[in-house]
């Protein structure tokens, strides 16, 4: 058993505050803070949203890397393998930072949030065990970037990404899945795959605690939504109008997660009123972060709309505060919850159906209490960061023990995998060059068709 304080290197593309406070990055932050509180020495390597720097954050050293491509956008690789180029840059920057961090710190374990091949160099170095956390979804900033670039259409691009990913995942000592992602277990690692859940601080997000605002004794509804688009403006307006018909003294708080401007709340309120939304309080997502526990405690129930980029915390936070919520069903899957009986997702997400459910929750105290108790119980059993960190630390200890005993065997297996994957890359490269020349060169296309024609003639004459 490892007795000294663990020295952990955490590699994660997303780590707040950069790129926001949701998704896998938030989970990594909750884990890092919990490890730190247990006396571990944690160094984090993460992508920089703006400033590439070595920073300190809540007792952790956080190295922000430059993951963006600075080369010419008209280069052959930039044009034909643009997504692979982004992922490769992300990998290279985290590998480089890891090597630099390893010069000064002798890590006991490397914990990697694996989206591409972030763990590969640490695994090949083989100085200490490498454990991977595999999430159901990539960080929102990375998805956005890849969507923006678009698909090149070359199969080789996907082959590079998938080969690097599987090579990297197969080289780690252990894998923990978070949010129920699909993980390839063909390499016989099935027994080493641990399951965990997104974690949050259940002491902060608790039903008991101070309230954020004075709702003047009125029943409060919190709507967590985007508000800039006409779609959500009119949806919120219609739902609120319908609910207010039944509950005229409703207190309405809107947490708007797509307002980035410095507009004051009074300006935002006035703008919403013009769209037919009379709210008592509107707050932008940055101001609301530290207030969310108090705001949820203030509320009787909630409505969560357009929450894909806020997943899964926009759903977990109210549940942890024991607040029943209605959520927009087609935003993101709910695989991160093993039980979602206490959630309401009207199948036909109509104004009438949503408003009726909210009115029911606002009026029926017995139903609310039942749902609140179930939700809190579920969150404590599955998403409490203390309990999840217990399991992760246990996995670290196991990985360290395993690493000590089976190092040589693992190295051979790892190298065999590298050779196998190398072969598929060579084959793919050959095909890609052919495809690329076919698309780009008229002479090559003529020679391709001539060759085909001659082959057919030869075959015909035989």
């Amino acid at each position, binding site marked *: 058993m490892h007795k000294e304080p663990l020295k952990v290197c955490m590699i994660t593309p997303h780590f707040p*505050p950069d790129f926001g406070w949701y998704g896998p990055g938030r989970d990594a932050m909750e884990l890092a803070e919990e490890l730190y509180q247990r006396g571990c020495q944690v160094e984090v390597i993460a992508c920089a949203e703006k400033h590439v720097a070595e920073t*300190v*954050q*809540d007792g952790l050293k956080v190295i922000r890397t430059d993951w963006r491509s600075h080369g010419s956008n008209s280069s052959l690789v930039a044009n034909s393998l643009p997504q692979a180029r982004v992922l490769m840059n992300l990998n290279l920057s985290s590998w480089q930072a890891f090597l630099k961090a390893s010069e000064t710190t002798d890590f006991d374990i490397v914990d990697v949030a694996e989206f591409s091949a972030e763990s590969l160099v640490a695994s090949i170095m083989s100085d200490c065990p490498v454990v991977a956390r595999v999430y159901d979804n990539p960080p929102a900033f990375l998805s956005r970037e890849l969507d923006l670039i678009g698909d090149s259409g070359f199969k080789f691009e996907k082959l590079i990404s998938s080969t690097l990913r599987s090579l990297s995942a197969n080289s780690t000592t252990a894998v923990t899945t978070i949010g129920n992602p699909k993980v390839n277990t063909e390499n016989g690692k099935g027994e080493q795959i641990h399951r965990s859940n997104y974690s949050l601080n259940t002491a902060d997000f608790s039903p008991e605690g101070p309230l954020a*605002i004075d709702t003047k004794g009125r029943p409060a509804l919190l709507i967590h939504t985007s508000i800039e688009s006409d779609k959500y403006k009119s949806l919120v307006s219609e739902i609120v109008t319908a609910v207010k018909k039944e509950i005229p003294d409703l207190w309405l708080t809107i947490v708007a997660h797509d307002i980035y401007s410095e507009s004051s*709340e009074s300006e935002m309120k006035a703008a919403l009123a013009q769209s037919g939304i009379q709210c008592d309080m509107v707050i932008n997502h940055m101001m609301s*972060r530290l207030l969310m526990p108090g705001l949820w405690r203030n509320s009787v129930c909630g409505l969560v709309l357009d929450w894909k980029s806020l997943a899964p915390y926009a759903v977990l936070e109210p549940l942890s505060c024991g607040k029943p919520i209605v959520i927009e069903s087609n935003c993101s899957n709910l695989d991160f919850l093993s039980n979602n009986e206490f959630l309401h997702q009207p199948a036909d997400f109509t104004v009438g159906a949503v408003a009726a459910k909210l009115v029911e929750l606002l009026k029926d105290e017995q139903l609310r209490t039942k749902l609140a108790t179930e939700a809190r119980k579920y969150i404590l059993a599955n998403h409490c960061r203390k309990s999840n960190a217990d399991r992760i630390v246990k996995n670290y200890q196991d990985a360290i023990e395993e690493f000590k005993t089976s190092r040589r065997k693992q190295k051979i297996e790892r190298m065999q995998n590298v050779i196998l994957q190398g072969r598929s890359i060579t084959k793919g490269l050959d095909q890609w060059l052919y495809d690329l020349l076919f698309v780009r060169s008229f002479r090559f296309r003529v020679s391709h068709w001539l060759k085909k024609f001659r082959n057919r003639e030869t075959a015909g004459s035989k």
Partner: protein
Amino acid sequence: MLTEFLKSTIPCEVLESTEYEGIDDTLLISIPNSGEKDGLVLLEKGKAYCFSLPGCSGLWLEGNKLYVSVMSASCMNLLIYEPGKPVQTIISSKLGDIHDVRIIDDQLYVVSTGTNEVAIVDMTGRVRESWPMHGYGDSCHINCLDVWDGRLVATAFGKFTTYRGYKGRTQGSGILYDVKTRETLFDGYSAPHTPRRDENGAVYVCDSRGEGVSYHNKDEKKMISFPGTFPRGMEIIKDKIYVGLSSLRHRADTKDGDECIPSAQLAVVDRKTFATLKRVSLPQAEIYDVLAVNN
């Protein structure tokens, strides 16, 4: 040395104007709510260097080290500039919307307006000790610090208990209080900022919504008025007082009158007579803090 370091470290635009001439001191001025290309202004030898450092609030100089708090609503973000060394960034996810920063007895104090407290943080971003006011979130709007006779004091918009409880109620509700005991020392201000005490024991507070600087020395009370402005940020040095004057025109929920200044100004006030000797216009809308950095 520090100013040269800032010029070589942070991208900046240099403005030249006869207006900037005649200011003997080298001053750093923080600009909140600015655009990407703004945030910190250095007035030096007749030139204004506008540094691209958005969201600056409190400034503090300890030896040759400059501490800058950056207003980030979702967390604490502090920057430390020291000539010859890499810029240090300290972040705390437990604090937010930092309005002021100061070193006292080798400890780093910050005003976390977003969490309604004054806290000591260590150089790794951990909160070591904290003095919260009553209420939740930004309820009292605690903003600026000073030390008076060994007492740590701060200005706040009032004793409110819920988030933004001060909205529409700042008139006369502002206080200056002892951070550690929560005792109110002075009250009756309207949205006060920047408490300062000079070597003679006279105290100055920017009574921002009161459009002046409140002066209090033993039995003598005075208001140095700056009508049509929002005074915030002050440096008392030798025979002068530098007062930052923000434009009300750019502030939401404020009705601007004829006297309203179109953009921020720096007032140079004679310390004996309290007469305004000069006003220097800056292209930015607001000023948060003013700090002398005579190299």
